[in-house]
């Protein structure tokens, strides 16, 4: 046998061996969430107690993107089992068959959850809002609506908005006087789009575009912007952890729901359902809301909360009153076109 043959034979055996070893490795349940202060809270009230109850699990974090899930599932080596996804990822992934069908009878039944949080492929994890955030120390006169956000004479300073068409166009229309419930009706028309971009033109040079949820509190803290659109939980976390004095405006807030899904073909389905049942229980969800200001999916969770905590949650009735849900069907249909259009506008 020649050296070459030995080498080739060794290489082949080695690669095959590596492939087999990785395939045969049974792994613990892996839960994936969004990192940051939010995942810290989840660790404390969900993951650690669940581990103590006797099921081993790991947690990882990700930055979203349905493409990531598609690559994981289609690649055939999914290393994740339970993932927290945003509403559009839920819809598209469900259409593409990336998720297992959610068996609600194994997690306490559909009737235990708010109707908006029940889906064929997933169960709601949290409800959260894009709100208008500002620094109370800098603005003595509190802004009341998105219209104030666009009023740079009364409130001088720059404004932070999430880069892209989504949320930006809705905010522009509400600032221009469209009622929250009519936003998508108006946005679906050519005139509505024109109107939104025209409104954005009025503060175009004062906008700082942010890309990641951690940026808006930093922009406020550094004094770069006077007001910004921001996830409500981030404001709450900055006030609690860093002793900031930030305020929020719930009027015209845009809310959305993140859901738990089980990736198609997960080898840990049993453990996954055990986990989802655990995090679906009202008393556990109430603990999460006490740690970070997000609403949750179980109908009974709010009743287990102190009124002082409840009033800062997206699911508090007063905060829901003038809020609008970010429309998944609208954005699925229009995101590509409006992304192009938004960038055309930005480059002008």
């Amino acid at each position, binding site marked *: 046998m*020649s*050296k070459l043959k030995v080498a*080739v034979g060794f290489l082949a055996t080695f690669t095959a061996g590596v492939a087999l070893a990785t395939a045969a490795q049974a792994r613990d349940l892996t839960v994936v969430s969004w990192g940051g202060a939010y995942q810290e809270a989840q660790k404390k009230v969900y993951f650690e107690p669940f581990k103590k109850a006797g099921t081993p699990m790991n947690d990882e974090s990700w930055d979203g993107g*349905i*493409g990531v899930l598609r690559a994981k599932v289609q690649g055939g080596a999914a290393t994740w089992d339970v993932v927290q996804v945003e509403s559009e990822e839920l819809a598209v992934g469900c259409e593409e068959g990336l998720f297992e069908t959610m068996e609600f009878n194994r997690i306490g039944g559909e009737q235990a959850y708010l109707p908006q949080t029940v889906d064929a492929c997933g169960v709601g994890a949290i409800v959260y809002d894009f709100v208008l955030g500002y620094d109370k120390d800098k603005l003595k006169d509190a802004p009341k609506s998105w219209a104030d956000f666009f009023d740079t004479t009364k409130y001088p300073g720059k404004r932070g908005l999430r880069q892209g068409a989504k949320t930006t166009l809705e905010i522009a229309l509400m600032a221009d006087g469209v009622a929250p419930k009519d936003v998508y009706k108006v946005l679906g028309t050519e005139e509505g789009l024109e109107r939104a971009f025209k409104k954005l033109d009025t503060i175009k040079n004062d906008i700082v575009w942010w890309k990641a949820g951690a940026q808006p509190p930093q922009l406020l803290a550094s004094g770069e912007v006077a007001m910004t659109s921001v996830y409500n939980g981030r404001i709450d976390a900055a006030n609690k952890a860093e002793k900031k004095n930030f305020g929020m405006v719930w009027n015209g807030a845009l809310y959305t729901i993140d859901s738990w899904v089980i990736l198609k073909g997960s080898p840990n389905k049993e453990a996954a359902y055990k986990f989802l049942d655990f995090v679906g229980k009202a008393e556990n969800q109430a603990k999460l809301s006490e740690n970070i200001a997000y609403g949750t999916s179980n109908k009974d969770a709010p009743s287990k909360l102190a009124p002082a905590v409840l009033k800062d949650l997206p699911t508090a009735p007063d905060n829901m009153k003038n809020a609008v849900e970010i429309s998944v069907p609208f954005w699925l249909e229009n995101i590509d076109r409006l992304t*192009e259009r938004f960038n*055309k506008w930005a480059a002008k």
Partner: protein
Amino acid sequence: MTAAFVAGADASSEVPLKRRLKRAERTRRLKALALILPLLLFLLFTFLGPIAGMLWRSVDDWEVRQVMPHTVAALADWDGKDVPGEPAFAALAGDIRTARDAGTVAIASKRLNYALNGFRTIMSGTARNLKTLPEPGTAKDTLIGINPAWGERATWAAIKGASGPLTSFYLLGALDLTRNLDGAIVAAPEEQAIYRDVFGRTFTISLGVTVLCLILGFPVAYMLATLPTGQSNVLMIFVLLPFWTSLLVRTCAWIVVLQSEGIVNDSLRWIGLIDEPLRLIYNRFGVYVAMTHVLLPFMILPLYSSMRSISPAYMRAAASLGASPVTAFLRIYLPQTVPGIGAGSLLVFILAIGYYITPALVGGAADQMISYFIAFYTTETVNWGLASALGAVLLLATLLLAVVYGKLVHGQQVTGGMKN
């Protein structure tokens, strides 16, 4: 192999020398090949394979073909002049019913929505409202009754255009082109034509950063190359330290330095040069500053290595023959640094056109480079066809530039300036 070779040596009397030589050569060649085989396989699996897959995705058009096979077949000989006849409608109704039961309607409607905005609604609404298969002969009326869009030529042209198996749709889209109803290539609608601008922006920023790096890096490299070893090593640490620091850390440091209440603005205000803070970040200026800083070591290191090999005797000789310092520099020193300039510039430029994190964090909405859009379509909207097409255009443009550069710097060799 070796055993065979030894056996061959025993039989040397019968085998002519030429053939034996050939055999020995072949053995050596095979050995050499075996040595590079692991690398070759590695590159094939991790680099060439994925790139080929990406290029394939930019022309692959499988969705409609797979979900609506009968409709595609029925439209095969449709001339596109008028709304197709009853058979096509019947095929469509059948396909939609089948797709609904299989749960695959969304796969086709996502692809069709790229071609015609609003197609998602048309498809899902039709799938929901088509309770039973229409009676033979009534499919056309039924479908148009459910959604008048089925009576439009554009709707059917979109299906025909997405029939596959291969499509130019994504590649045209990446160049701001589209096909009109008659299949002729025309410019995309004005408010959606952004990609040529984005490519232009990407190359402009990359070129600007390359020039800035050259201007800043050349003197530094010269100093490093001419100082005594002890001092130049200390200075080299200053070049390498940022090189070893995480990209994200350096980018965020620039935000702290340049923001409106940052170090630069506060200092200027304190001196009294400005009243209002200057806008130094979240715009093009910030992108140039941060990217130049991040890429500077990639320019300095090749320059330094090429300058180290230039003997100082040349400059002395030029001076002794009466050349002024400027002439000596331009005619003797500079030409010898060309390989270093070339290598550094190409390295910086190629790295810059792929930049994503830095412009995303320190740029404004009008400063995003092409990688931002490739990432957006890959992960957020899963329009992998368009993402691949943008990637393919970028790859092609980069290869062309590399070839042109090779011709410029080395005449006929294409070595990317790495041969010095």
